[in-house]
């Protein structure tokens, strides 16, 4: 089964953020591990939330990211690009700070 998380950037800071949905409530988190993992149906509903958030000027450029769910609410990324985006630069000065 296909799984997804919803990601975007904070408008104000530019930081990479993920959508976290709990019941009817939702918010944006900078910790990838706490992103909500959804199936295809949830993806569409959550993307609609994210796009509304973009219209409310809280985030920019939201999109759904393919992930592999671990069944316990966690996930791993399927591409190097997304795992680097989630984890930050893999080398250099960014690591020291």
């Amino acid at each position, binding site marked *: 089964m296909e799984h997804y998380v919803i990601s975007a950037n904070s408008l104000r800071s*530019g930081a990479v953020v993920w959508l976290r949905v709990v019941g009817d409530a939702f918010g944006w988190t900078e910790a990838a591990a706490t992103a909500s993992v959804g199936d295809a149906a949830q993806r569409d509903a959550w993307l609609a939330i994210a796009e509304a958030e973009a219209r409310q000027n809280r985030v920019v450029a939201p999109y759904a990211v393919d992930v592999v769910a671990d069944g316990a609410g966690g996930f791993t990324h399927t591409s190097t690009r997304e795992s680097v985006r989630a984890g930050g630069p893999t080398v250099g000065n960014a690591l020291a700070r």
Partner: protein
Amino acid sequence: MYRYDQLDRTFVAERVRQFRDQVARRLDGRLTEDEFKPLRLQNGLYLQLHAYMLRVAIPYGVLSSRQLRALAAIARTYDKGYGHYTTRQNIQFNWIRLDQAADVLAALAEVEMHAIQTSGNCVRNVTTDHLAGIAPDEIADPRPYCELLRQWSTLHPEFSFLPRKFKIAVTGAEADRAAIAVHDIGLRLVLDAAGAVGFEVLVGGGLGRTPILGSVIRRFLPASDLLGYVEAILRVYNRYGRRDNIYKARIKILVKALGAEAFGRAVEAEWQAMDRDGMAIDAGMLDRVATHFAPPAYAELADAAPERAQAMREPAFARWLARNVLPHRVPCYRAVMIALKGGGAVPGDATAETMERVADLAELFSFGEIRVTHTQNLVLGHVAAHDLAALWHALRVAGLANPVVGTVTDIIACPGLDYCALATARAIPIAQAIDAAFADVAELHDIGDLRINISGCINSCGHHHVGDIGILGVDKRGQEVYQLTLGGSSADEASLGTILGPSLPPDQVAGAVRRVVDVYMERREPGESFLALVRRLGVDAFKARVYGGLEAHAA
């Protein structure tokens, strides 16, 4: 160096004020992202893989100590304490918050800097030889012409929405250190038979997915006609360049489609039809700008080589002299290169502390001036020969005396997938792996000049097509793989590299480079460059060694 006049100051301050207002309107929702994006890009602010990135223009790569300290302060206050020098002599800050971006621009304006035209389909930062005004082989100083081009192109109403971005490089020396053949316009200062200064004009060079070397469309253009002629080139491009396909929109595609001769004729016709006198650079105009680039007050020193005696006693100093110190047109002065490379460094990265230290050393030893090279290093351009030992000691303490300039580990690398939203693979870890595989400085010196350039995608910001060894990272089904090319060069007799063979996984790249270098070391004739050997042997001689016994990765 060039100093802003009242007009420049007012203009830049006004732009900062406008951008502050635009950001405020974006944050409170009066501007949508679609409305705001072009405005932020016009001020050099990109949204990258992790965050907003601000690209700051360093006109033709020249900085004062005061400016470098301001960049350090920006790195410390608004970023994560470091910046990244690019292959276009600019600096990028990777972690700028949108709600602080106008403050950064204000801090830049304080030291006569900005980020205008570092993005968008306009004329970008004009680049030049990092040894401009210094090199013994210089015909004329290109910087006054670069500055005139900068003034002419800044917010030029006709050329603010070109089909695609537009890059101009100028060299004033016999040896091309500015890679003019791979720019949209390449300009080479030349003298005619009567000794008058003019330009050889190349157009249509570029890298990216369609690498092409520029074609000469004019052997000699009187220097006073520079702006009119460049304007004519831009007009022809603006009118006929493609806008339907981003991959075919650069001027190189138009020049190739029309043929360089026909393109040149169109430019000549446009030029003949314009008010050429009105566009001419008169002597007063040139002198006014050239004053800013007058040589510093060199001391009257004996023409000696005081560094030689010490080099006899200090092998490490001798190695640094051999690789990082270059001759100066004033005999008792030298140009000193500071490699932002080696020892696990990220090519082109500098911390705030490094920038401040270099700014201090420039003030002490080099008239407070620093240059940024397109190979992502720094230069102290005017060091008295008798100060070299003292400077070397100071650089060594700061970890900035790595004697590797021009060697295998002086690698050009774009930020790659560690930072860039366009990248398809990482470039920095590959540079670091090669760096680790060639840690022996004596060996590096034995190998000698060998340029390795790494790009993390086909856009080729890492100039891989023109490296002796070029490395291109691509994504293959979510995995990073790397394609090697051999025999590229951006210097005189420029050439594009030839693909060596199937792509390699990341952990095999440094080993492949090692085997390529082994072939060079075994087969070279005395004094033969890597490029000459590749041209003599062809890539197959290298291919057999690299792929022998190696499982190629999904050819």
